[in-house]
C-alpha cells in the first residue's frame, strides 16, 4: 500500500493556510487571463479579506481543498479542490488552477491533478470525477486528457466574454478508466 498519497513527481498537496497563504492566493487574481478561465462569475481585482474568509471555511465531507506546492522549494503555485462530493453516488467535481504563471504548461498542474484523482479514488473511494472547462482553454483540456478524462459533452454558448460565445466542455473519468490508466502508465 502506498501511503504517501499527497506527494507526486513535481508537487505535493498541502492544506491552504488562511494565515500564511491568503496573500499569495489573492495575488493570483491580478491576472485576469487566469481568473476569466477559472471563474463563472464576473471577475474582480484581488480581494484579500474575501479570499481569506473563503480559506477559513471548514473543510467538510463534501469539500476537499488543497494547496499545490513544489517539491523542490516548497513554493505555493496553485490549488486544486474536490467539491460537491456526493458519497451516496460516489460522484464529485474537481477544480484546479495554477495561479503562478511561471509554473504553467510544465506538467505541474497535470501532476497535481493526478494526485487529487488518486485521493478521490483511493482515499474517498469515489466512483467518478467530473470537471467543466472553457472549450477554448486548449492547454487545460490537453492536461485533463493526459490524466484520463473523457469528453462527455458541451453546453452550447455558456461562456460569453469579450463578445465571443464559447462552449463549456464537460469531462469525466470513472474509477474503471482511472485504474486502466495506472496499469498502462
Amino acid at each position, binding site marked *: 500500500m502506498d501511503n504517501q498519497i499527497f506527494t507526486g513527481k513535481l508537487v505535493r498537496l498541502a492544506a491552504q493556510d488562511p494565515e500564511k497563504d491568503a496573500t499569495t492566493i489573492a495575488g493570483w487574481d491580478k491576472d485576469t487571463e487566469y481568473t476569466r478561465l477559472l471563474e463563472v462569475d464576473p471577475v474582480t481585482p484581488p480581494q484579500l479579506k474575501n479570499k481569506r474568509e473563503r480559506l477559513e471555511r471548514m473543510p467538510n465531507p463534501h469539500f476537499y481543498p488543497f494547496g499545490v506546492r513544489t517539491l523542490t522549494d516548497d513554493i505555493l503555485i496553485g490549488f486544486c479542490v474536490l467539491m460537491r462530493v456526493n458519497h451516496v453516488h460516489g460522484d464529485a467535481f474537481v477544480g484546479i488552477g495554477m495561479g503562478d504563471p511561471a509554473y504553467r504548461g510544465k506538467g505541474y498542474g497535470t501532476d497535481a491533478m493526478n494526485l487529487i484523482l488518486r485521493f478521490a479514488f483511493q482515499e474517498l473511494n469515489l466512483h467518478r470525477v467530473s470537471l467543466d472547462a472553457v472549450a477554448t482553454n486548449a492547454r487545460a483540456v490537453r492536461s485533463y486528457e493526459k490524466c484520463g478524462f473523457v469528453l*462527455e459533452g458541451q453546453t452550447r454558448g455558456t461562456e460569453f466574454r469579450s463578445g465571443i460565445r464559447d462552449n463549456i466542455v464537460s469531462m469525466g473519468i470513472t474509477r474503471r478508466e482511472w485504474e486502466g490508466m495506472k496499469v498502462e502508465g
Partner: protein
Amino acid sequence: MVLQLFEGEKIRLAAFDADKDAEIFSKWTHDPEYLRLTEYEAARPLAPFHIKKKFEEMEKDAHGDFYYFVIRAKEDDRALGFAHIRWVEWNHGNAHFNMALGSPDDRRKGLGSEALQMMLRYAFEELNLYRMTVHTFEYNDGARKFLEKRGFQLEVRRREAIYRDGRYWDALSYGILAEEWNNQVARSK
C-alpha cells in the same frame, strides 16, 4: 407585447405560499418515485416544517437570483407542482431550470407542457436569458421525451454519476437556446 406571463389556460404560476403549500409539498416527498425522478440527493420524506425551511435555505443560497413558482390549477387553485429558475449567470445569460408535477394523476394531461412553455417565455422574454440548462437522469424516460419533444438538446452525459438500485446510471443535461425557442414560437404562429 405579451402581458400575461403567469396566467395560462389551465394553470397559473404563483409564488410559493408556505402556509398554504407546505402540506402538499410534504406529501409528495413521501412518494419515493417522485423523489427519485426529481432529486439527485438520496430520497427522504420531509415534514411541512422542513419543506418551509428548505425553501428558505434555497432562497438564501440563491442570493436573490431565485425565480420559484408553484404551478396551480386554475379550476380549483390547488398546487400541482413547482417550476424554478436559479443559479442565473447574468454575465453569460445562462440559468438552471427545474420543474415537476407532484401527483401522478396530474401528469400526461398537458399541464406540465403548459407550465414549461410559460417558464420558457419567462426565461427568454422577461429575464432575457441566452439559454437554459436542465438536469435529469438516464432512467427518467418521461422527462427525456418531454424535453426532447420540446426542443431541448442533450448536451452532457455524465456517465455513471448516479448509483441507484445496485447499478450506475448516467446524469444527463439538456439545453435550449433563446433562438431555438424563438424559432419554435414563430413556427407555431
